[in-house]
């Protein structure tokens, strides 16, 4: 069998920006041609897996539409007219433009817009390094819709993401009694790393609840499905607390020990009572009401057990209440009847859920980004985390944690330790920087692994107001995406099968994304592309050795000593050491060092407590609205955001976008399945097919995100979304795009009419 003998098997891993499931992949290769991909082994046999997109990657790799050479724009921006140029010419044009712009406006007028890198590290690191060396602007990827989660998590837990505290032992396959999947659909978005575990847990006795406006794949597996009105999550959280408090099912010991619930709040300015207010020598310490001594005392480890949690106290003439009392008073405003009315969930269902959360031995609250994509999504995250906190369902030990990444970013962030690093802008702040010069002017952008205009809010604004203000645009891309059409220079990039990277995923593994074949056509990896630019800008020494050297740089970190490139070539390795010195929260890194059920830092914004504030646009009382339907965007199994959106093998199964509309709403508008409809608001009209189904709750419509703009008859998903900035999120971390907080109307479309 000579033919068999010539086939090499190479283990690599998919870095796609999904769950991040990060499947190990075994590639069958012959003469620089990949014949087949299949799931690769993992140390724990049950973790062997691949998804339908991973399986289809050869259709991406060998797609006839791949960009094969560098391209220079020859038509108007957006026309898609380009001519082939050499790499040398492309670099010359880029260097000339960058230098001109830097001379006129400074280097910070040049921005690096990087998409989600998935599990990839060096492709991100390369750009960070050049951004740092040139002190240009790095545009953060969180605000694409993911910033609400860190905003909420940073406030209550002091951690960038809440996973370690909420998911806890779930990742070690220690199943809880109750699993509450809140605004997330791992059945499609994280089937392998998460959904498989949910199914395992369920079989072992875990009861599963799904809270979602859609009857998702995950909801189909739930014991209880609760159809919530989009953007009302914090009302539900308060309603649950109301019942938990009323029935005394909260965990007083946990609240005293781990939260700032006992801390006294001054009612006049809603700030904490401090040492200086009670004559304590530690002027800035927090204070509590010592029940034994009947006076306000500085918080000590020894006296939290004696802390009063309820009531109101007069401390030297200042009216105070414990933070927990204030939370309780807020929750009292949300009796079940009112909560039911706001959230659209039946009163008795809320009662049962509250009782179960209060009485179950262990509850895991599972959420990703969907719940936080409303204007007050950060508070929604705090709301559900507060329910977890008052019932003691927060885990604080590393061993029960989730490790998002063991990353050694420092050498990239401060490439030259003597000089300052890059400037940083949130993605929505970038809109203002480009369009209004606020906080400073951006004149050139480099887009890498992102289909910006397709995936960012208010596409029309990007096309009409944002692109025209830019003097120079570069895009590294596989295909002529909508965003690439607006670039001045397009550089052909590799798929993940054509370059190497280090992947600290999925928990609890690290893997090597091993180059399987040499780059096709004239394509290069992002690291090689940025290396070529760095050399021409005089920073070549920082990029010597390319991606291989960068992998070594990452693996050089003390926490990764036990791993070697050689061993990783053969397979994934268990992650079993606590990485020291990395940004991993072993304690709550909040101002108080506790879980902050009361956030003093937001007192001046009126958001110290996880209160319910109505969505900014999504209609909660439809009759009063010009656009009476809530518009949300689920995540499809057929794409990872917009990636794989042009792959025939997947399009064959699901060929075109459609809007899901409930039969009640469809009937009112005389819409039936497969009718062409207009989904519209003041910003745009989007025309596509309708799918009439109970998959969405009445009053809500859904289009799966990631469809390409040119796959719609007119408009697109993000033609309908808005770019409103939430100033509180801007203050906490960075503002999020509120894609699930959008109002639309839908009507039947007839040709020629709008």
């Amino acid at each position, binding site marked *: 069998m000579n033919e068999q003998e010539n086939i090499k098997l190479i283990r690599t891993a998919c870095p796609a920006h999904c769950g991040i499931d990060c499947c190990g992949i075994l590639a069958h290769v012959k003469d620089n041609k990949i014949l087949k991909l299949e799931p690769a082994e993992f140390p724990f046999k049950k973790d062997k897996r691949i998804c339908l997109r991973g399986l289809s990657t050869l259709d991406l790799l060998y797609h006839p539409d791949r960009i094969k050479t560098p391209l220079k724009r020859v038509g108007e921006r957006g026309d898609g007219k380009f001519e082939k140029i050499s790499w040398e010419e492309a670099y010359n044009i880029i260097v000339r433009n960058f230098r001109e712009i830097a001379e006129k406006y400074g280097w910070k007028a040049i921005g690096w817009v990087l998409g989600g890198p998935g599990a990839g590290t060096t492709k991100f690191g390369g750009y960070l390094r050049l951004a740092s060396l040139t002190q240009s602007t790095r545009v953060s990827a969180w605000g694409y819709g993911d910033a609400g989660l860190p905003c909420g998590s940073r406030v209550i837990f002091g951690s960038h993401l809440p996973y370690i505290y909420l998911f806890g032992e779930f990742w070690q396959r220690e199943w809880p009694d109750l699993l509450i999947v809140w605004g997330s659909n791992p059945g499609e978005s994280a089937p392998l790393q998460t959904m498989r575990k949910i199914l395992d847990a369920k079989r072992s006795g875990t009861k599963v609840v799904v809270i979602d406006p859609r009857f998702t794949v995950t909801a189909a*597996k739930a014991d209880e499905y609760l*159809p919530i009105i989009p953007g009302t999550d914090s009302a539900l959280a308060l309603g649950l607390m109301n019942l938990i408090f009323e029935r005394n099912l909260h965990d007083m010991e946990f609240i005293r020990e781990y939260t700032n619930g006992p801390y006294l709040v001054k009612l006049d300015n809603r700030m904490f009572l401090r040492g200086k207010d009670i004559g304590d020598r530690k002027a800035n310490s927090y204070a509590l009401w010592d029940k034994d001594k009947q006076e306000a005392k500085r918080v000590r480890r020894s006296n939290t057990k004696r802390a009063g949690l309820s009531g109101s106290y007069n401390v030297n003439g200042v009216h105070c209440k414990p933070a927990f009392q204030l939370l309780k008073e807020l929750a009292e405003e949300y009796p079940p009847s009112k909560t039911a009315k706001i959230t659209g969930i039946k009163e008795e269902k809320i009662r049962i859920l509250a009782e179960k959360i209060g009485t179950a031995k262990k509850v895991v609250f599972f959420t990703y980004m969907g719940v936080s994509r409303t204007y007050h999504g950060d508070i929604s995250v705090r709301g559900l985390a507060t329910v977890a906190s008052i019932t003691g369902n927060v885990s604080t030990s590393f061993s029960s944690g989730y490790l998002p990444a063991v990353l050694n970013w420092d050498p990239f962030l401060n490439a030259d330790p003597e000089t300052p690093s890059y400037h940083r802008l949130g993605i929505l702040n970038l809109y203002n920087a480009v369009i209004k010069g606020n906080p400073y002017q951006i004149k050139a952008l480099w887009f890498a692994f992102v289909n910006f205009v397709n995936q960012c809010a208010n596409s029309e604004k990007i096309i009409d107001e944002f692109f025209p203000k830019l003097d120079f645009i570069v895009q590294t891309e596989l295909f002529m995406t909508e965003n690439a059409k607006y670039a001045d220079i397009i550089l052909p990039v590799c798929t993940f099968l054509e370059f190497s990277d280090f992947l600290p995923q999925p928990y609890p593994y690290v893997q090597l994304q091993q180059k399987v074949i040499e780059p096709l056509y004239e394509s290069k990896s992002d690291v090689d592309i940025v290396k070529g630019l760095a050399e021409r800008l005089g920073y070549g020494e920082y990029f010597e050795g390319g991606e291989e050297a960068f992998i070594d740089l990452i693996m050089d970190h003390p926490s990764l000593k036990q791993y070697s490139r050689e061993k990783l070539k053969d397979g994934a390795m268990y992650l079993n050491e606590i990485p020291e010195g990395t940004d991993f929260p072993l304690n709550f890194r909040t101002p108080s060092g506790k879980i902050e059920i009361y956030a003093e830092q937001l007192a001046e914004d009126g958001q110290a407590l996880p209160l319910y504030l109505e969505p900014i646009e999504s209609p909660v009382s439809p009759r009063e609205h010009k656009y009476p339907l809530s518009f949300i965007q689920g995540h499809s199994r057929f794409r990872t955001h917009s990636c794989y959106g042009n792959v025939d093998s997947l399009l064959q199964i699901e060929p075109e976008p459609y809007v899901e509309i409930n039969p009640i709403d469809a009937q009112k508008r005389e819409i039936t399945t497969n009718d062409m409809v207009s989904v519209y608001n003041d910003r745009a009209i989007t025309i596509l097919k309708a799918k009439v189904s109970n998959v969405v*709750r009445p009053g809500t419509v859904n289009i799966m995100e990631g469809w390409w703009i040119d796959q719609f008859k007119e408009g697109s998903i993000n033609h309908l979304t808005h770019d409103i900035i939430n100033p509180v999120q801007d203050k906490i971390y960075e503002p999020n795009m509120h894609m699930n907080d959008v109002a639309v109307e839908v009507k039947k479309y007839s040709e020629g009419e709008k």
Partner: protein
Amino acid sequence: MSKRYGFIIDQERCIGCNACTVACRIEHESPEGFIKVFTQNSEIKDAPTGGFPDLSMVWIPKLCNHCEFPPCIYSCPVDAIDKRADGIVIIDEQICDGCKACISACPYNAIAFNEESGIAQKCNLCAHRIDQGLEPFCALCCEGQAIYFGDFNDPTSKVSKLLKENNLFRLKEDLGTNPLIYYSPPMKKREL
């Protein structure tokens, strides 16, 4: 004793993802794949049944049932279809003359006509992989780990053990075709 290969497909674990279909297309270079995923009791895929919000959505992958009494074999005028000793029903593409008799005879709509090559094709349970000691590619690539492949004649196999559960069903059992593809229905919803 001879082998008797088949599947038990666990509907509790099937998430309707179509990875089986994609895997099958790759393994067999077949345009559509010989295993297809449907949403039970619904004409539209991924559309729930029932009244909102008391809904249900259950997926059912369908493929050749590798019947013990396969109507396709009896229908083929050129004897191109055979049932191997291990239970797998295969079409010999060299013999098949594309008359489509089997396609009409199959009560499961599991045989496709390949317009390009002009012959009938269907799932062969990845016989070529089984012969090398590998499991069928769709079972290997199943995202939900819902497809249990094994030998029903081996009492220690997972499928044999699961076969003892009394809630398994097969498609169109009344026809007496006696399929080797079994389904395990989803768990009932439990009170919280």
